[in-house]
């Protein structure tokens, strides 16, 4: 089992299931296609765990260094002698970790969906899209070269598009899916140009060459500069742009809240746990290039991460749609991960930020998926997305309540839940790098705790709302994943990440820096306390606070009008001021020129036609004058 050839099946199985369900799904019974998809994913999960076991504990750790293992790498598309797209599987600590994350959350979502999506029209379509997503995401993380990553990057984009637009008859869902795809596509443009620039400079797509700290790619990178930054820096910034889009960082975050129009399990899988962290994964994958060749780009990564985390956290405090709160919280948490990468060093303990980022990615996947699945269970129970329709659900949904609470504690960073550990490492890394970033993250930790418990208190405490039917706990297909994920969210903090997933593959020691951890826990507790005061003890307080900070509240509620700005750019600028003039120009100027040519020809020919007047003497006149002129020419001009 150590040659890892079986890893091929990790992404072949979902692909085959996608093809099967896509082509023949409508002939199968809905339940069977669901079970088929789930079973296939179960196999994939088992394979992923086997891979992880053998990778971490059997094969790779020679001299305590995790090697990069290229299981398989074959040419898919040949460009030039040095540039070609290969399809392959690269196993290294981060990709194996991602396999675990994806397969676990995926499996949970598959199982959960059996209950949640029961009776939906297009059940088989749903599972086929989920398989497509699993396939693409697996392909993305095990990519051996940047172009393979781009290919699967696009594929996860399309699966996200298809799944957001699953309820294709709902105009909001259609709009949201379109928006998600186009925004990320725009960011991917940057990614693609970045790849082109990078490959032009380094003559390779291959990660193993690109990210080798002693390799030629990094060594040759400080070439020509443009606007004060080296071309490599520019290309890495552009590549990061792709990550910004996919990970919904500011300013490309606008698609993620809207993406909540998709089915809730999809939000849990794609828009919380896996796809949106692809940007983080991308930076982590290219980390040596960033660190050695483009430190300025890494700085940008850090600042965009920090800003997004603060920005999204503030918005999250004002949202009333339960899923949107979670969406903004996702943005905020991914901002944390980006920040951690941005402040990280390379190798050993210097790579603390890198390790913390991956650690947080892992724990976040667990607790955020859990939060979304819980939200799904709540929505399932009360048939509404809005917090105003919820309250006092603690007694109706005890199990959901418990798991939700665990997730809230985890995300708020309360020990001993997982979020505490990963967040602490991030804060420690930020502290050693830049104090401003560090304090921003402290603030965000507090705000996070506040808005999560605002959510928790409004939904589970407080008074009962008027429910059409008495809310009841979800079926076991839905609760079992909740329990499993809750366990993971609670205890995954104890995984010794610094031994397993590090920037250079070498293990190092970490310890909790209590000087940073205790204040952070205190801040989180303050946040929780504030939420308790505002939403349980004194429910009229929020209204009063809002009326004091009317304008800022309105600003945050409307997400700082970023959406409107985008709408302005697309509707006004692109449609009104570019496309319509182009269309007009084409119809009237370009085509008009062609038509004008035709008209001129016609007019001239009508004129010429008039010579044929039927007037015999005119003909004669022209004939004779012509003869005379000809005679003149022949006699006088040519002699």
């Amino acid at each position, binding site marked *: 089992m150590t040659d890892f050839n079986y890893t091929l099946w990790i992404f072949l199985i979902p692909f085959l299931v996608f093809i099967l369900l896509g082509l023949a799904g409508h002939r199968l019974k809905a339940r069977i296609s669901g079970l088929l998809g789930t079973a296939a994913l179960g196999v994939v999960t088992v394979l992923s765990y086997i891979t992880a076991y053998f990778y971490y504990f059997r094969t790779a750790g020679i001299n305590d260094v995790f090697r990069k293992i290229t299981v398989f790498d074959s040419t898919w598309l040949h460009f030039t002698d040095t540039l070609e797209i290969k399809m392959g599987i690269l196993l290294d600590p981060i990709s194996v970790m991602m396999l675990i994350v994806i397969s676990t959350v995926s499996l949970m979502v598959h199982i959960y969906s059996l209950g949640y999506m029961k009776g939906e029209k297009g059940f088989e379509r749903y599972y086929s899209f989920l398989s497509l997503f699993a396939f693409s995401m697996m392909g993305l993380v095990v990519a051996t070269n940047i172009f393979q990553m781009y290919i699967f990057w696009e594929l996860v984009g399309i699966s996200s598009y298809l799944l957001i637009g699953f309820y294709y008859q709902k105009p909001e869902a259609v709009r949201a899916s379109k928006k998600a795809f186009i925004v990320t596509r725009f960011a991917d443009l940057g990614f693609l140009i970045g790849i082109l620039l990078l490959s032009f400079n380094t003559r390779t797509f291959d990660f193993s060459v690109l990210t080798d700290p002693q390799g030629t790619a990094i060594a040759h990178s400080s070439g020509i500069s443009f606007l004060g930054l080296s071309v490599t820096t520019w290309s890495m910034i552009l590549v990061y742009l792709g990550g910004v889009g996919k990970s919904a960082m500011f300013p490309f975050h606008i698609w993620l809240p809207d993406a909540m129009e998709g089915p809730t399990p999809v939000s849990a899988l794609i828009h919380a746990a896996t796809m949106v962290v692809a940007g983080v994964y991308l930076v982590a994958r290219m980390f040596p290039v960033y660190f050695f060749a483009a430190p300025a780009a890494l700085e940008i990564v850090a600042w965009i991460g920090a800003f997004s985390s603060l920005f999204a956290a503030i918005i999250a405090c004002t949202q009333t749609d339960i899923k949107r709160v979670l969406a903004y919280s996702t943005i905020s948490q991914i901002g944390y991960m980006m920040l951690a990468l941005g402040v990280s060093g390379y190798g050993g303990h210097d790579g603390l930020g890198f390790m913390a980022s991956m650690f947080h990615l892992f724990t976040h996947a667990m607790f955020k998926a859990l939060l979304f699945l819980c939200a799904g269970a709540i929505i399932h129970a009360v048939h509404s997305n809005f917090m105003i329709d919820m309250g006092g659900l603690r007694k109706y949904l005890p199990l959901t309540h418990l798991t939700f609470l665990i997730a809230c504690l985890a995300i708020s960073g309360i020990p001993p839940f997982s979020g505490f550990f990963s967040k602490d490492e991030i804060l420690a890394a930020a502290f050693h790098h830049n104090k401003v970033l560090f304090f921003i993250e402290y603030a965000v930790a507090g705000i996070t705790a506040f808005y999560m418990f605002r959510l928790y208190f409004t939904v589970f405490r407080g008074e009962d709302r008027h429910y059409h039917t008495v809310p009841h706990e979800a079926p076991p297909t839905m609760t079992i994943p909740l329990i499993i994920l809750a366990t993971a969210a609670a205890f995954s903090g104890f995984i010794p990440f610094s031994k397993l997933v590090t920037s250079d593959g070498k293990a190092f020691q970490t310890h909790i820096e209590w000087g940073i951890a205790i204040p952070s826990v205190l801040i989180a507790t303050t946040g929780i306390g504030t939420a308790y005061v505002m939403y349980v003890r004194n429910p009229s307080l929020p209204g009063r606070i809002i009326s004091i900070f009317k304008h800022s509240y309105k600003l945050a509620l409307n997400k700082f009008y970023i959406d409107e700005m985008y709408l302005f750019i697309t509707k006004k600028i692109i449609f009104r001021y570019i496309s319509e003039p182009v269309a007009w120009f084409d119809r009237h100027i370009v085509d008009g020129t062609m038509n004008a040519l035709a008209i001129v020809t016609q007019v001239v020919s009508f004129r010429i036609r008039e010579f044929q007047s*039927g007037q015999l*003497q005119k003909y004669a006149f022209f004939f004779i004058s012509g003869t005379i002129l000809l005679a003149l020419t022949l006699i006088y001009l040519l002699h």
Partner: protein
Amino acid sequence: MNAGIPLSYFLILAAVMFFTGIYGFLTRRNLITILMSVELILNSVNINFLALNRYLFPHKLEGFFFSLFIITVAAAEAAVAIALIINIYRRFTTINVEDVNIMKY
């Protein structure tokens, strides 16, 4: 009988006659007068033929016969032309050449 008269006199006379005919052809509107202009033109050509024959190649008869045939052809042409004119007159009730213009465009 032509002693003392240079050849060019005949030729110039013919040229004047020819272009007078041309002028007539271009300005006259009545088809019959146009026909008369054509006769002038033909005659001027005849004079040329004969003068050149007499002065330059007196031992040959080409010019003579050419003129003879031209006269014959002119006769035939006049006959046909007048038939045409009469027919045109019948159809259009005019022999004004400017009104006979349906053959256009």
